[in-house]
């Protein structure tokens, strides 16, 4: 007949009140954990999406991240192939690596001169096979399946453009873009659809004849010497990008094509070497090893490493926002549990005043009385937390199997709405322990009051 046994019997004594208190705790636990699982799912989805597209780490020329986006040609990695070789064959890094691939970011102006329209763009030069492998990364087994790039198996002049680019360049029809509003043309200045010098530059390219229904664009970019260079490209597909600003500007192309635009006949460079790791948790170790390599084997070129969080500030902001909401909810529910359990324990103390007097008269110390009520609260907390975790697993199962979908910010396609609680041991245990702790804390004051009662007053209580 230890204290916990007595505490448990006391809880069962007033079953309805104990159940009501437990219910409040269960609802609190479910609310916290389901939201936690939901936000965890979002942050992991975002992470997966970013890692699929941009890897975990990027080796860039020093200061490219700060100053190079407007002038990528000046911030290229001259011997990027050596960087790739060193990284891929490094005995420390190699076991962590999933993909190592070069990339080029560039800016320019894309035009559909036949339609007399153009716009500024952000281009990305990619090794398609590597990117297709990157798209298969799914550490958290999320229901995300990115299809292979539309550039797969295409000629070097093929590009994929954002829906917004297709819309502005009036390529929706040949690219069969759905829901693409037609531009009502204002009066445009008469004359050639493109400046003469640009047209001349474009003519230098071995431009295949545009077949009917083919979507061709001319892409003008500044080469490494600052001179304009033009490529005539074939848009093979328009894909919606997550953010409108990006959707209106994106052009994806083969790496070789992008290199030719920026570097012409000179030795091609890359603006970054992308590293996709097997696990996100390997980032610190990989960064540390890369820092060693950049300071030794690769010290010939001024390089630096950026991780995906630095490259995608939205990720950190989203994680921070969800963490803040989660914290706010946890505090709010903690306060509700605190007052619910506190109220239950206060009522128990009042109802059992004579019993407290009896126990004290028989020789139970004040600390024993305190321990008794704290044990009751602890049991309430533990049972409530355990029931809350169990109920959360049930609710999560129901949600995950209900076939609900939603469109996360920055994503293109709706994804299944899921609640990720199974396997999130630290979140589950943390919440359960937190609730149990709140329950114990809430009993502290009533328990103290019970322990400090005068025995004769307690015995007189009716």
């Amino acid at each position, binding site marked *: *007949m230890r204290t916990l046994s007595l505490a448990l019997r006391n809880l069962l004594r007033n079953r309805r009140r104990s159940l009501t208190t437990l219910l409040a705790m269960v609802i609190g636990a479910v609310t916290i954990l389901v939201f936690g699982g939901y936000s965890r799912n979002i942050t992991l989805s975002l992470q997966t999406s970013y890692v699929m597209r941009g890897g975990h780490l990027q080796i860039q020329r020093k200061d490219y991240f700060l100053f190079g986006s407007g002038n990528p040609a000046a911030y290229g990695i001259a011997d990027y192939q050596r960087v790739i070789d060193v990284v891929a064959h490094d005995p420390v890094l190699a076991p962590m690596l999933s993909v190592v691939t070069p990339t080029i970011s560039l800016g320019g102006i894309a035009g559909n001169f036949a339609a007399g329209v153009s716009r500024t763009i952000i281009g990305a030069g990619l090794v398609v096979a590597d990117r297709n492998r990157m798209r298969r990364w799914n550490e958290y087994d999320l229901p995300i399946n990115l299809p292979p790039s539309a550039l797969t198996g295409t000629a070097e002049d093929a590009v994929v453009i954002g829906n917004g680019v297709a819309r502005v360049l009036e390529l929706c029809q040949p690219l069969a873009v759905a829901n693409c509003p037609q531009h009502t043309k204002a009066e445009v200045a008469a004359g050639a659809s493109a400046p003469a010098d640009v047209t001349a530059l474009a003519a230098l390219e071995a431009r295949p004849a545009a077949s009917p229904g083919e979507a061709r664009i001319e892409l003008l970019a500044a080469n490494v010497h600052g001179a304009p260079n033009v490529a005539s490209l074939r848009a093979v597909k328009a894909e919606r990008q997550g953010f409108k600003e990006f959707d209106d500007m994106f052009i994806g192309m083969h790496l070789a094509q992008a290199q030719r635009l920026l570097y012409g006949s000179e030795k091609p460079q890359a603006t970054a070497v992308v590293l996709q790791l097997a696990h996100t948790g390997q980032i610190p170790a990989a960064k540390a090893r890369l820092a060693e390599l950049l300071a030794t084997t690769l010290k010939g070129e001024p390089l630096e490493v950026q991780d995906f969080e630095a490259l995608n500030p939205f990720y950190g902001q989203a994680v921070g926002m969800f963490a803040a909401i989660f914290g706010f909810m946890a505090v709010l529910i903690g306060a509700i549990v605190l007052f619910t359990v506190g109220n239950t324990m206060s009522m128990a103390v009042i109802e059992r005043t*004579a*019993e407290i007097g009896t126990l*004290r*008269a028989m020789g139970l110390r004040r600390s024993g009385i305190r321990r008794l009520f704290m044990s009751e609260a602890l049991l309430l907390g533990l049972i409530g937390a355990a029931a809350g975790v169990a109920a959360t697993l049930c609710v999560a199962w129901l949600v995950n199997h209900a076939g609900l979908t939603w469109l996360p910010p920055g994503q293109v396609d709706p994804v299944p709405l899921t609640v990720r609680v199974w396997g999130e041991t630290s979140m589950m245990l943390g919440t359960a322990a937190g609730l149990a702790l709140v329950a114990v804390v809430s009993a502290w004051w009533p328990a103290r009051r019970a322990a400090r009662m005068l025995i*004769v007053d307690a*015995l007189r209580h009716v």
Partner: protein
Amino acid sequence: MNVVTLNQIGKTYHLDAVDVPALVDIDLEIRPNCFTVISGPSGSGKTTLLNLIGCIDQPSRGEVIVAGEAVQKLSDDALSDFRASHIGFIFQNFNLLPVLTVEENVEYPLLLARVPAAERRRRVEDLLEAVGIADKARNFPGQLSGGERQRVAIARALAPSPKLVLADEPTANLDSHTGAAIISLMREMQREHQVSFVFSSHDPKVLAEADDAVMIRDGRIEKIERRETQAEAAP
């Protein structure tokens, strides 16, 4: 040695701005292995006196010595331990723990006195047998009659082998037949366990059983009858 010695005890309650004396200049000695009854009209101070003897209340003045210990000098924890090992209580309303079975109620003070498990089991069985309620050992107090509950309370009070058992109006909530049986049982237990019993009671049957009778009125001892020795002493 007397089991209880009270020297010049006074107890005053402070009600708002008024001081109400409950006990005044009490000098009393409780003899060992005696059946002592404190009697007097309502409000005379019987319960207050019993509380002081039971070390669950503190006097305003004077000295309380129980089992040779000046209890006022003890800390709260030491006093709790002292009560656990030296004093048993029987209450008017039985005050059994409703969530514990009969045997668990009797065992509880033994746990407080840190008696080993085997010894606890033995004593519980013996006591339940002695008070005639062994067949209800697994019952809860709510399943017992008033008389049965008071038998459990007697067994519980005697469990830690105390030097002193205090009973505040133990028959007040019982019918006369059951009350008489309980008094008889307590007398038997007192003799068998060689323990001092101190009662507060108006009940003439209880008074008739007493070795010593202490008459109290308006917080003062009016008369002490030492019947076993036929001695009658003024306070």
